[in-house]
């Protein structure tokens, strides 16, 4: 009885040995690569967004360049000024504001001028959805919670939130995190990165 796969193309001993050796090397390489697959060497931001999926907002390295006192429009007319302060979690602008997408969004302000007493201005409107008259927006600055805001869908709401002195005078950019605990899944198959909550109409830092 034949136990061969099929009539074998006769290889010389050296060629056969070479083929086995090459196969072994390839398999070793694949094993190393598989080890690398489960041991990525990436930044915390990358890991949080792409791998662990603990955030829907991928921290992008925008500069935060910003003129203190300016209220930046997040309507289509403010595209140029938005660029340097919108970090992630925003899509648009649409006609009446910039859609927040996902369960959080970030802004970054790095003004040259920094009075000790300043406030964060936010103008927002909630998305319209039956049975969901309002959205909650949790605002944090540099990792410290500042306020929970109720944003209605009927008309834009404007908030002036005093910034703690410690945050205002410290060097480096001011990181604003907006969490949307009541964000809505709009379609049955929409992933969390597509959930909707509010539209931002303007944002800025002003004297308090």
């Amino acid at each position, binding site marked *: *009885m*034949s*136990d*061969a*796969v*099929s*009539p*074998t*193309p006769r*290889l010389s001993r050296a*060629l*056969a*040995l070479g*083929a*086995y050796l*090459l*196969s072994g090397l*390839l*398999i070793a*390489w*694949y094993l190393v*690569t598989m080890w*690398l*697959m489960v041991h*990525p*060497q*990436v*930044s915390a931001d*990358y890991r949080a*967004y*792409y*791998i662990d*999926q603990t955030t829907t907002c*991928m921290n*992008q*390295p*925008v500069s935060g360049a910003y003129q203190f006192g300016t209220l930046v429009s997040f309507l289509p007319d403010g595209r140029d000024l938005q660029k340097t302060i919108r970090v*992630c979690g925003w899509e648009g602008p649409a006609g009446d504001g910039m859609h927040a997408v996902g369960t959080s969004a970030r802004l970054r302000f790095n003004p040259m001028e920094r009075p000790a007493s300043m406030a964060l201005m936010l103008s927002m409107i909630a998305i319209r959805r039956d049975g969901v008259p309002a959205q909650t927006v949790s605002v944090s600055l540099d990792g410290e919670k500042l306020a929970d805001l109720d944003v209605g869908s009927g008309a834009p709401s404007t908030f002036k939130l005093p910034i703690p002195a410690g945050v205002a005078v410290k060097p480096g950019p001011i990181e604003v995190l907006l969490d949307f605990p009541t964000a809505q899944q709009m379609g*049955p*198959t*929409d*992933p969390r*990165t*597509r959930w909707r909550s509010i539209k931002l109409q303007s944002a800025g830092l002003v004297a308090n």
Partner: protein
Amino acid sequence: MTVAMASPSARAVPLSLRLFGIALGFAVLGLVLRYLAFAVTVKDASILTFAEGMCRWDCGWYVRLAETGYDPFPVPTMINAGNWAFFPLFPLLIGALRFVTGLPTMPLASAVSVALSIGASMLAYPLLGRNIRAFTLFAAFLLCGPFSIYFTTFYTEVLFLFLTLAVFAALGQKRFLLAGLLAAALSATRIVGVFIVFAILVEVWRAHRAGGGTWRTFIPATLRRPDLVLAFALAPLGLFAYLTYLHLSIGDALAFNHVQRAWGRPLGLPPVFVWNALNAWPQSGFLPSSSQVSGLVTVIGYGLIGVMFWQRRFAMAIYSLICLTLPLFAGMASIVRFNAGLAPMILTLTELLARRSWLFWLALLLLAIGTCFGAVGWLTGYLALV
């Protein structure tokens, strides 16, 4: 005379030349028909803007890949969707040719795509049982059909299809080592290409059985054949090369998979997605919605896989089953394109349509008409085609 019967003058022309002539004829006809669709759909259309004008949706990503390579992290344009999701071989090939020739990307990519489609048709001929009617339909499907946009612009489907046919042609001749080498290229073209290894396995098993081998002797007999061992080891080479590159450049070998999150693709069960698609009725009119078209094409795809099983083409059937089902876990997006680019599907479909003369001519006519509709749908953003 029918297409299947050759006249004495036709016999004087070498077969390969006749086949080439047929494919070339469809390439020219398809080009003319797509251009007409382009001219009536796009404002200020001209020959000079034709190649770029047909480049829609993912094509733009491939152009950028060929011209500037893969994104670093963070992506310079500060978007989450890095271009790591796109497998490298075809854009790499076009990028290299662009570097050598200095030609602009889209005309070059279109010309290479047409050449690969003609080549794929030639490779398909023996796999179609040397049936010239089936060959004619196959060539028309690629070069002058509603889905010819995928095979004549800048999409990875054309190389994927070409290499798939090359692997099956090599397997048909029991040239397993060559099949392994081609599979390595296939696995660098699209992620599902790596599953061609199962087709190789099936064919090795069949050869083993034909030689009187049994289940018990299969693995020892295979291991005694260095060419087979090397073929299996080579098959995923393209994929692993890309994984290594991603680890070295991004730090994450699975970046191609992880980045899918940025596209907002849902995750779910294929039957649920297909059922939902089939039930997505249009809001007005009688024409099926684009979701329904995607659902219908998927059902036809599974039907064709059933035919492959029935015809005992197990290697093709298993490979197609994996290639069709895996993407469905991420929804129906691009599923028409994935079906159209699966070589065994087109082989089976064209064989079936070539069985009757009247069906052959009808299919040919519909393909030609479909070229215009496909191109117009493509240019006007018909979502099922994306």
